[in-house]
């Protein structure tokens, strides 16, 4: 596990910050040595196992939708509620500008602290969240706005009220409606994309994955629990599930991988925002040249082909 290397690097980084606060500049000998030490500490991060990537994908310091909206978009106007029953804090979204163009942006919300994480239900949306997303997407289509979604969830929330309010139906309606949207949809899998809860906002023309993000049929714990009745065997599950960005690119699900800084996005978020911005801009301008009909067919064909069967 790379946990220890990251902790070590974090310690060195905080010492670097202290020295900078004391007014030391880049030429300072100690600072120079410390930055070499940090690079050394991060060296194991050059070759990561799937389990390491799951660890990184879930790291609480990792940039979440709030950070992406703040750094890549302007004029964000939050829209709340499904306008049917409730507002789900695990699903966040609204209208914003991307490079000046009005777009609808939405996604699973996660916190950076224990308190905010709990407030956003760890990114596990309820039917109200999926219906909020659907409301926003239908509106985007009405006003001809492209849609950008950020996917980061351990799965849709498994609870009594979620079931009573039709968790399955809410996700199914999103899959059906998203498949027929006549505006461009780009999804970015930023952290953990697990199960129908992820797919429910990820039926996109283009799917981008951050380098250490994961996307899978179920969380590794759920997978181990179903197959071996033992969720503690999630490490084994990570190894066989084929859930890394590279695996998803091979499967034809992901279209592009956004490289992350060594040790994960949290090590240098600004750099990540830069490369994500470039990729989003490129993909969006490509899709915006297509007619509504072409956009619809492009998305339909993408999903029609995945896991094709002969005969």
């Amino acid at each position, binding site marked *: 596990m790379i946990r220890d290397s990251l902790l070590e690097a974090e310690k060195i980084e905080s010492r670097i910050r202290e020295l900078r606060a004391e007014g030391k500049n880049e030429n300072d000998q100690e600072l120079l040595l410390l930055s070499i030490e940090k690079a050394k500490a991060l060296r194991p991060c050059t070759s990561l196992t799937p389990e390491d990537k799951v660890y990184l994908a879930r790291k609480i310091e990792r940039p979440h939708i709030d950070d992406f909206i703040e750094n890549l978009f302007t004029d964000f106007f939050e829209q709340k509620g499904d306008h049917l029953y409730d507002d789900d804090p695990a699903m966040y979204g609204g209208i914003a500008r991307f490079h000046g163009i009005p777009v609808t942006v939405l996604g699973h919300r996660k916190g950076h602290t224990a308190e905010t994480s709990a407030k956003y239900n760890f990114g596990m949306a309820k039917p109200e969240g999926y219906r909020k997303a659907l409301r926003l997407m239908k509106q985007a289509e009405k006003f001809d706005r492209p849609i950008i979604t950020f996917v980061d969830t351990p799965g*849709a*929330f*498994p*609870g*009594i009220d*979620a*079931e*009573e*309010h*039709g*968790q*399955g*139906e809410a*996700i*199914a*309606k999103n*899959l*059906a*409606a*998203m*498949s*027929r949207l006549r505006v461009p949809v780009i999804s970015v899998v930023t952290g953990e994309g697990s*199960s*129908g809860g992820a*797919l*429910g906002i990820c*039926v996109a023309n283009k799917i981008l994955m951050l380098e250490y993000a994961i*996307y*899978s*049929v*179920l969380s590794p714990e*759920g*997978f181990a*629990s*179903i*197959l071996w009745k033992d969720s503690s065997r999630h490490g084994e599950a990570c190894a*066989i*599930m*084929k*859930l890394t960005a590279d*695996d*998803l690119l091979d*499967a034809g*699900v992901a279209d592009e991988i956004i490289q992350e800084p060594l040790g994960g996005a949290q090590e240098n978020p600004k750099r990540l925002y830069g490369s994500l911005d470039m990729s989003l801009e490129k993909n969006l301008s490509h899709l915006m040249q297509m007619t509504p009909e072409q956009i619809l067919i492009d998305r*339909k064909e993408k*999903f*029609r082909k*995945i*896991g*094709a*069967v*002969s*005969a």
Partner: protein
Amino acid sequence: MEKEVSKFKSVFERITGKVSPEYITCKACSRRALKDVWERNLSICPTCGKYRPMTAHSRLRAIFDEGTMKEFNQDMITTDKIDFPGYEAKVKQLEKKTGINESAVTAEGRINGIHVVAVVLDTRFFMGSMSSVVGEKVTRAVEFADIHRLPLIIFSASGGARMQEGIYSLMQMAKTSAAVEEFSEHGGLYISYLTHPTTGGVTASFATLGDITLAEPGALIGFAGPRVIEQTIGQKLPKGFQRSEYLLKHGFIDKIVPREQMKQTLYDVLKLHVDSRFTRRMDAI
């Protein structure tokens, strides 16, 4: 296998020299009845009335007029997409045991003369879970119904996604939902028939997208499995939670239909649509 059978030859066989008739014991009342009796009684226990899961083919035989059924895509082969240890062997083993090669059986046929497309999931094969082949067969059946303007009936019964096919399984949810939605946009009628159990990825895709949603009595229907919910919330679930009757109460099902009324109910609903002036363009009759 054959050797074992001969070793345990029944008294009936030893005396008469004939193969002994097959019996099935009811899990609820422990009474046994001839397999043929179960089949003729729609897999309802003749003694206590408890339902056994119907196999896909016996379900199709029960709804279609005799001699009208034509099965689709019987030769579609399930492959090991993510190099999952032991998957292919398990597929072979189930093929041998059940006589079907996937959990979805798709076909066209007639219900009291009305031409329809039907899909049935069979829980004997990987708990009716959604594999690439299941997704493909369902999608092709929907596309067939769309092209030929036929009503579509899907009998769902599934544990959800096929874990052994990883992300490919998940993507079948998007593929099948897209097909159903396009079919619906074209004015197609889709009757979703939920049977025990309908959960996970099937619930979160085509099973809950019907124009008319019917369910068998007492069927477990939900997204998350009861065990997962109990673990998450740390408490016991209320009695009857996620059963057909509970979903009916919460507004997700049009009608609970006892199995004896299955064919008649389907016919009644079909007839109302075939006779509608808005669906006159359906070529079902």
